[in-house]
């Protein structure tokens, strides 16, 4: 596929609605000839993955040629503004569209360079009675003993056994996950959803918990590969 024909390239891609993070916000690339319901469904799926990040963000809606698609652009920008409180929805600059691929890559790496980490990384064993509170993500390199408590605004990732209590996505981020190599917590909570008395797997496996249809589901991380379907890496 030719690089000079950017828009056709996207149409033939598997993901027909794509989301990319950029320096100035998010860029949504889609085919305007797709059914509106399908596009809205895909947008919901993509934006749900970055729920709190979407808030007040600037979105660029790239439908290829703008001419003749004003209607769908307007309806989708209304949709995004209402549902995800994005600050603005605009169409891409023309020259930006011409050689899209190269500047985008630069933009992405710049984003990560400038991104100050929100993760609290802790090494060692967390013991009974200890409580670790992280503003956003929490990474523990070590075991988490029963009787201890982890609280995070975002994800909780444990490179070891989780046998204590873990509260991710506090207070209301139900997109957060809890990941551990030995997943045997006393209780977990994601956003406002609580799960206790989870079945214990005897063999250590990389498992993660997430919210699905209002309940907490624990699945094998390798098999499920929950972020594998993201076409482009995004900052969590």
């Amino acid at each position: 596929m030719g690089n000079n024909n950017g828009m056709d390239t996207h149409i033939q891609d598997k993901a027909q609605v794509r989301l990319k993070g950029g320096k100035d916000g998010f860029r949504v690339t889609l085919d305007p000839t797709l059914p509106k319901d399908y596009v809205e469904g895909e947008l919901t799926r993509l934006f749900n993955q970055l729920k709190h990040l979407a808030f007040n963000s600037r979105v660029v809606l790239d439908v290829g040629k703008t001419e003749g698609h004003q209607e769908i652009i307007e309806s989708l920008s209304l949709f995004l503004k209402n549902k995800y409180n994005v600050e603005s929805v605009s169409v891409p600059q023309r020259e930006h569209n011409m050689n899209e691929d190269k500047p985008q890559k630069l933009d992405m790496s710049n984003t990560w360079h400038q991104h100050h980490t929100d993760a609290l990384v802790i090494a060692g064993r967390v013991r009974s009675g200890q409580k670790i509170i992280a503003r956003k993500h929490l990474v523990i390199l070590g075991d988490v003993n029963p009787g201890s408590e982890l609280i995070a605004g975002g994800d909780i990732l444990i490179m070891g056994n989780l046998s204590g209590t873990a509260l991710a996505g506090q207070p209301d981020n139900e997109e957060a996950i809890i990941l551990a190599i030995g997943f045997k917590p006393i209780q977990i909570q994601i956003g406002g959803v609580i799960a206790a008395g989870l079945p214990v797997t005897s063999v250590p496996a990389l498992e993660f918990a997430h919210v699905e249809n209002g309940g907490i589901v624990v699945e094998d991380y390798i098999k499920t590969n929950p972020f594998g379907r993201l076409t482009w890496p995004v900052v969590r």
Partner: protein
Amino acid sequence: MEGKVIVITSGKGGVGKTTATAAIGAALALEGKQVAVVDMDIGLRNLDVVMGLENRIVFTIVDAVKGKCKVKQAAIKDRRIENLHLIPASQSDNKDVLNPDDMVQFCKELRKEFDFVLLDCPAGIERGFENSVAPADEAVLICTPEISSVRDADRVIGLLHARSITPKLIVNRIVPEMVASGDMLSHEDVVEVLSIDLLGLVPMDTQVIISTNTGVPLVLQKDSEAGLAFRRIAMRLNGQIDLPIEIPQTLKSFWKRVGLKIGIGK
């Protein structure tokens, strides 16, 4: 040289702190050290009974700390084991009569007279625990192979860490048959959760009950496996750190027992 102050603690009650204190104290005294064992469980004293010295109490730790008597007067000398002294707790007060500063001061005096000062910490993590831990240089953590005990021990490790003390672990009351059949946590399981250095493993032993009831020191009973284990623990505390840790076995072969006796070398 100043003596060492070692607190013997567990968090949970009934895991064998007092028995261990009495046994390790007696074993250290048999090694020829000047030993004071101090009952910190004010209001619920037990150590005097376990050591068979209850009818000789005149002054208590509260009297000694408050300056009503001299340290020498409060320290009861054991008649069977030379160099072993007990400073009993008061039964009529409660834990609030002492504070951590008092104890630091008091232990400063004890250090001058004794090579080892063993503090028998009460259960719990309140005032009695704070009083016992404040003056300590080292800590010995007693834990039984039960989940509840391990949980509490884990908490205590965290509290001791806040005071820059890393305790050493004794796993008490191991029943090798139950470990072998998978009905009891093994000492490896306990160490895996607690991840601290092991000081010794003590098997379940009915002799302990006899010893507690009669007041005869456990380490003086020749056929007590727990007594032997405590003597080995005392040797490690006394500087023989490379003494291998004996794992309680189901098979009590003749040669094994002979080996144990030689190992003790008394």
